[in-house]
């Protein structure tokens, strides 16, 4: 029989990690149960806060918050809570030696940065690790654009041709360049993660440095795929930059998510400084409730069931992709408590003909109040000690807004706080609260 913990977090995506951190920093005991690594492991290492609202690209993400619909998680929370969440993440990341920062306007105000991708497009994002900081590119006249033989997802010629289509980039000089495969003349395909793991080791760093040095000399900056190490180790980054003697900038890439894995690494390290336990490869299959309280969740791992009893619960189970939301013809529901999510019965109405249109399905999720408690149709909380966070929450479309990690962060922070507070109340039965 395992001990009763304060806060049980389900899911280890960004929302789960942030919720766990927030609760742990308030002194609660936290256990995280998860059956996968979440979207973080396949996404970039930047935190998009809000890139587009009201049909406009935002230079200042905060200025767009008011343009969002009332049911948007940012609106439910209010901008000041979102700011507090951002501050907490900045603090934790810095404590782990993996600092994040924002770009700044000429007046010095924080703003969105435009990050180059391996498709040669630019994406607005807000919190960046050093490796993604595009400042050096803005100053550069001549940019080396590097790919690697065997890395099929990154083609310098494509990147150059598409970057040139942006006005600010049209006049720059680009030098496309293919690094030889570190595996020699074999024809094996490589992913950015394979390469990043190689670069974790000195031999791999040598390979990268030697090859970049050949060309970087004549350039003001080097643009390369996310291969500069797979962990949140800033020393690797600094070593590479110094040895190549030219600022390096990584591009955003498609899965696997090297950048996301580094952020995950930093947050897990920070979590381990607290009363925190991680249970992996375990899937929550059932909830035990008592009126408006949840008492335990049952996990299935390697064919064995295990009950996890806690005082408060954070459900950061992700969306349609993560497994937190299940769609069937004509219906949608949350996957652990089987909460019904209202949808039109005609599936045709779930989406628009345009792939990047304004779809019902991409905003589907659990309806919550400002404290992240799930609500029924009449606005009543289903349960008192359950909090949802991240993509499992409805009301926003992270893909077109560019708000994925931002919402995960803000809602995770709030869910973690509320869970910590709720668990705290149960510690003090003298207060007269019903357990």
């Amino acid at each position, binding site marked *: 029989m395992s001990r009763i913990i304060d806060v049980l977090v389900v899911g280890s995506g960004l929302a789960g990690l942030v919720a766990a951190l927030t609760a742990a920093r308030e002194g609660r005991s936290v256990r995280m149960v998860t059956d996968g690594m979440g*979207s973080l492991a396949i996404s970039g290492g930047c935190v998009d806060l809000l890139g*587009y609202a009201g049909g406009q690209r935002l230079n200042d993400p905060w200025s767009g918050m008011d343009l969002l619909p009332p049911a948007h998680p940012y609106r439910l929370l209010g901008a000041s809570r979102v700011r507090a969440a951002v501050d907490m993440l900045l603090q934790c990341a810095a404590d782990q030696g993996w600092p994040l920062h924002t770009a700044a306007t000429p007046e010095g105000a924080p703003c969105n940065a435009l990050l180059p991708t391996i*498709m040669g497009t630019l*994406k607005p994002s807000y919190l960046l690790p050093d490796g993604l900081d595009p400042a050096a590119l803005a100053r550069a006249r001549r940019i080396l654009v590097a790919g690697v033989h065997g890395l099929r997802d990154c083609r310098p*010629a494509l990147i150059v041709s598409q970057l040139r289509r942006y006005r600010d980039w049209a006049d720059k000089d680009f030098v496309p360049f293919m690094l030889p495969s570190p595996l020699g003349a074999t024809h094996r395909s490589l992913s950015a993660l394979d390469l990043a793991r190689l670069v974790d080791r000195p031999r791999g760093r040598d390979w990268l440095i030697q090859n970049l040095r050949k060309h970087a000399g004549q350039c003001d900056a080097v643009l390369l795929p996310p291969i500069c190490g797979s962990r949140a180790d800033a020393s690797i980054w600094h070593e590479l930059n110094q040895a190549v003697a030219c600022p390096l900038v990584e591009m955003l890439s498609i899965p696997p998510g090297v950048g996301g894995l580094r952020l995950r690494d930093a947050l897990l390290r920070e979590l381990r400084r607290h009363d925190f336990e991680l249970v992996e490869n375990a899937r929550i299959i059932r909830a035990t409730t008592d009126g408006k309280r949840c008492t335990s969740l049952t996990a299935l791992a390697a064919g064995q069931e295990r009950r996890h009893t806690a005082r408060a619960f954070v459900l950061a189970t992700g969306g349609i992709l993560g497994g937190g939301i299940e769609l069937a013809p004509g219906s949608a529901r949350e996957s652990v408590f089987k909460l019904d999510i209202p949808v039109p019965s005609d599936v045709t109405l779930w989406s628009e003909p345009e792939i990047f249109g304004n779809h019902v399905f991409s905003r589907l999720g659990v309806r919550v109040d400002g404290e992240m408690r799930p609500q029924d149709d009449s606005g009543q909380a289903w349960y008192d000690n359950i909090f949802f966070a991240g993509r499992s929450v409805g009301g926003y479309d992270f893909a077109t807004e560019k708000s994925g990690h931002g919402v995960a962060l803000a809602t995770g922070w709030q869910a973690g706080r509320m869970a910590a507070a709720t668990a705290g109340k149960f510690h003090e039965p003298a207060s007269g609260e019903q357990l």
Partner: protein
Amino acid sequence: MLETTVVVIGGGATGMGTLRDLCMRGVPAILLEQGGLAHGTSSRFHGLLHSGGRYAVNDNESARECIEENMIVRRIGRQCVEETEGFFALTPGDDPAYVEPWAEACRKAGIDAQELDVAEALRLEPNLSPDIRRVFRVPDSCVDGFRLALHNAMSARRHGGRVMTYHEVTAIHQRNGKVCGVTARNSISGESLEIACQCVVNAAGSWSGRIAGLAGLDVAVSPDRGTLIVFNHRFTSRVINRLHPGADGDIFVPHGSITILGTTSTPTERPDDTTPTCTEVLRLLDLGEPLFPAVRQYRILRAFAGTRPLYTPGNAAGRKASRNFHVVDHAEQGLEGMVSIFGGKLTTYRLMAERVSDNVCARLGVHAPCRTADEALIPDPDQAMLRRAARYFPVQGLQLMADRLGDDLPDVLQQVELAGRAGESDGNPLLCECEMVSLAEIERVARDPSTHSLTDIRLRTRLGMGTCQGTFCSLRTIGALVEHGVPLELSPTDNVRRFLQERWRGLRPALWGTQAREMELGRAVYAGTLNLDGAANEQDN
């Protein structure tokens, strides 16, 4: 101004088959197709090379044609056919009294239908419903309609024929009651082109009524829409038909690693009314259940629709309308030199082409006999060539690739060998893992003058048709093409956007289960990470 003897309108199986037939008889001909190769129904159909069993009772003549052509197409189009055989299964909902007349009709048409023990049938097809009552095996097979059209085109080219894609016929000219030429519009450059000719063959499928209209003729062709569901799983290795009078949603056809269930049948005004609906998908799932009880558990990959060219003199509609074909010589209506081919099935495309060509040749005084049933569309590649190719292509995908490429195989092989020797390449990586499509193949297809977009490449290579539905391979492909200096019509980002948009059309009506997850991933990658949506307004030109 171009000049030829015959202009064939329509680049589906029928038109390509006709072009090939005419060229093999020594008649100069040009084929015009408004879209890419097999833009119409020949790439939007069920893929069943009918044994004829489905038509045996109602239309024994059609059934006989099917079985004869079925045997011919297997022989001449080996690369396009997967010889699977088929079952006709009687479910508890079907009338047992239909079985004997059906078996008798099959015998009469020459279709070898053998009854099989139900237990044995279930052993062979374990996913089939255990409730089925009787099972017959028939020589059904599966056919790739796009490839059939392509290989006919390759064969026609070898015999001097010319195929012009993206050329829409906009006018048919006549002088003194005789056809004398056509005008076509190049849909890419917008330029128009005049071709002088003595005969026009209207093989425009569901559009053939409109083509007849261009010549001032009024004919009864009405498009009839059919929707199909593609599952990401080969849960049957045979074609499975319900043993009853043909109806909706009663056939499952396996193709490679997928299975297709269909179809529906509803009259429509527009030949290009090909967007499937959710209602149709749900209805097909209902209808498919008696044969495969777990049909709802299989992951749906996409849905698609095509339109049948039903020839409807006398207003028979839907399933009642004849599936047979009709060659109409418009001299009867006062226009000499114009022949239309209406209706029919893909299975009998060759026969249809033969009949039209007979008609045209008679008018031209050409006496050469039809040879299309004797010569293979594509000569088999020799073993030495395949051994050479094995050094550059994954062995598991080698035969598939050779079959896809047809006449282009030697060329592709030579290119990789050259690049390999020069040491300039990064090998020949697979760009699409689901369908095992390598860079060299894609590059060859992309350089083909008939290729204009990623979607054209998809049709030729099956790129992006598998599990990932293009999420990873479309980006890789466009990157490799830019790197290798192969230009396409649209910009790389627009090309990928359009490709994803086309896939989206097939995903929308079945947006649940695993398919919805795949869709959220696709949007996360292309909008969430690569900002393809935002870039549309932010990039110049």
